């Protein structure tokens, strides 16, 4: 009796897990299969007949190709570098320098940014960028994204820097390093895993960001992929499923590649320098 109940319990668990997993996996499987079918369909099935012609049509759309392989990359990489650099320096200072009220400052930043950013701030942001003469420039998009992401990035980085014992830096200073040498040789390499986390997080946020470039950019030659995907809609506003999925598949690849690269190159944590 006990055995039967145990087996039935396991069985129910696996069935429930499988259903649950399927709910999340199906859209992804559909995204992988759909671009290779000649006809659009909303059910998951092996493409029949198998064709690459959808990708041919996507690559023929120079506007969309430039958006994906040039504009999105410029904006995402630009923001990533700026946010990671600024967040690291700010977090390091906030963590190490004896500044009165630095905790309140860090928490205030996150709270403030989570309230103010988004659609609500779009009008003042537009006016600000307009008056700076940065409408329809990559720099305008990068600065607005940086402003929006930086507070949370500083918060994440600060948590990371806080978790690193000061004795690393102190032992470098006592060994004879200058403060800048200590930062370059010791602090920076040790916080690098945190920088990678912030960098990838920033990249993904900008990569998927639609509203900011949609409002701040004018020329089709500067639009990123998140906006350009609308060029695969019919004039009536319905998506051409074969082409949007083909483009969407291409759109996910750089993020996947970045993640795999970081995981391969830096996706390890250092252990063992501190004995506790």
């Amino acid at each position, binding site marked *: 009796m006990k055995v039967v109940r145990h087996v039935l319990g396991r069985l129910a668990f696996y069935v429930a897990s499988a259903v649950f997993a399927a709910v999340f996996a199906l859209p992804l499987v559909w995204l992988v299969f759909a671009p290779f079918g000649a006809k659009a369909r909303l059910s998951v099935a092996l493409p029949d007949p198998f064709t690459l012609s959808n990708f041919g049509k996507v690559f023929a759309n120079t506007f969309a190709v430039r958006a994906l392989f040039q504009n999105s990359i410029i904006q995402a990489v630009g923001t990533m570098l700026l946010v990671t650099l600024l967040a690291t320096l700010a977090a390091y200072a906030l963590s190490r320098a004896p500044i009165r009220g630095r905790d309140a400052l860090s928490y205030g930043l996150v709270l403030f940014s989570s309230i103010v950013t988004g659609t609500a701030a779009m009008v003042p942001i537009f006016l600000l960028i307009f008056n700076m003469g940065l409408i329809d420039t990559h720099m305008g998009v990068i600065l607005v994204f940086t402003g929006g992401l930086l507070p949370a990035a500083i918060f994440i980085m600060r948590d990371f820097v806080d978790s690193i*014992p000061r*004795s*690393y830096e*102190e*032992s*470098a*200073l*006592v*060994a*004879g*390093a*200058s403060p800048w*040498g200590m930062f370059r*040789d*010791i602090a920076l*390499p*040790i916080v690098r895993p945190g920088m990678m986390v912030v960098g990838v997080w920033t990249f993904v946020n900008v990569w998927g960001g639609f509203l900011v470039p949609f409002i701040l950019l004018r020329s089709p030659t500067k639009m990123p992929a998140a906006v350009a995907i609308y060029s695969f809609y019919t004039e009536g506003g319905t998506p051409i499923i074969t082409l949007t999925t083909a483009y969407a598949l291409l759109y996910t690849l750089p993020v996947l590649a970045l993640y795999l690269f970081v995981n391969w190159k830096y996706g390890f944590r*250092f*252990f*063992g*320098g*501190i*004995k*506790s």
Partner: protein
Amino acid sequence: MANVTFRSITKQFGNFTAVNDVSFEIHDGEFVCLLGPSGCGKTTTLRMIAGLEQPTSGRILIGQDDVTEAKPKERDIGMVFQDYALFPHMTIADNIAYPLKVRGVGQAERHRRAGEVAKNLSIDQLLERRPGQISGGQQQRTSVARAVVHKPRVYLFDEPLSNLDAKLRLEARSFLKHLQRELGVTSIYVTHDQAEAMAMADRVAVMDRGQIVQFGPPLTVYREPATTFVANFLGSPPMNLLPVRYEGGAFKAATFELDAGPFAERLRGIAAGSQLTLGVRPEHVRMGGAGDAWRIPGEVYAVEPLGPESLVTLRVAGALVTARLFGDDPPTATGATSFAFDPSNLHVFGPDGRRLAAR
């Protein structure tokens, strides 16, 4: 090679005084232990020598140089941290060679010198590994190697053995003492372990609440503790302390009375009725002693056989007194008994806790 001198050093953190008007001179080549309970200011003292903390007032000298305001890198010191603080992204070789790297020594030369030091410390087979891949004892040696590779004038040790297990700690203790003798470099060693301080130091500075209570050779500090604090801190188990009242030429407590005659000279100036403290080391306490004038009645509280010796604890007038008895067989005493000692081994501490020394 250098002296280290403190002149009236005070260090305050906000309203808290960590180090209070401390002055001392550590001689060239000397091994000094700063000993005390946590929060006594010993680590702050060490960090001020390293330049990691700035004193609130006073001057610090290394050799002839006033280094009070100098940056750590200008002080020419080597330091071993409690947590070792090896750089996790560097190999052992690069860790050891780091002080040479920041001094502009070329890669080939600094790796050669790091290899030399590593060989002396028997870690030369680990040079290509990273700190996470070696054992605690090896990490400890690596941090020592990094502290000595650039031949600094002073070594600083911040509880370097406290993260090792008991057996490794004894090994590392002998090793560090041997190394210091061999290199002959002025060393300052912070510990809260009195056995470590006794075993290693040329001189021990016992600290309490930001001040040095006593500074002297370990055996002198052990045999002639300046205060009840020092008496209670050194020795394992520490000195037995019994509160008594000085009255009519005798030390009086609820259950015993001892003739203060032999101490008359020391007690000159002590008013009758004063509260004093008697101290006697456990190894100077005998059990029984019937007919002995220096005898105190008590009751057996616990017997702890330790192999070559046994600890017998007696309850005496509300206090506990421990006797350390040598011999293979643990005593079998139970119930009411008494202990005795030689008056020459008795210490008398005045009402202020300071030891009354023979004049």
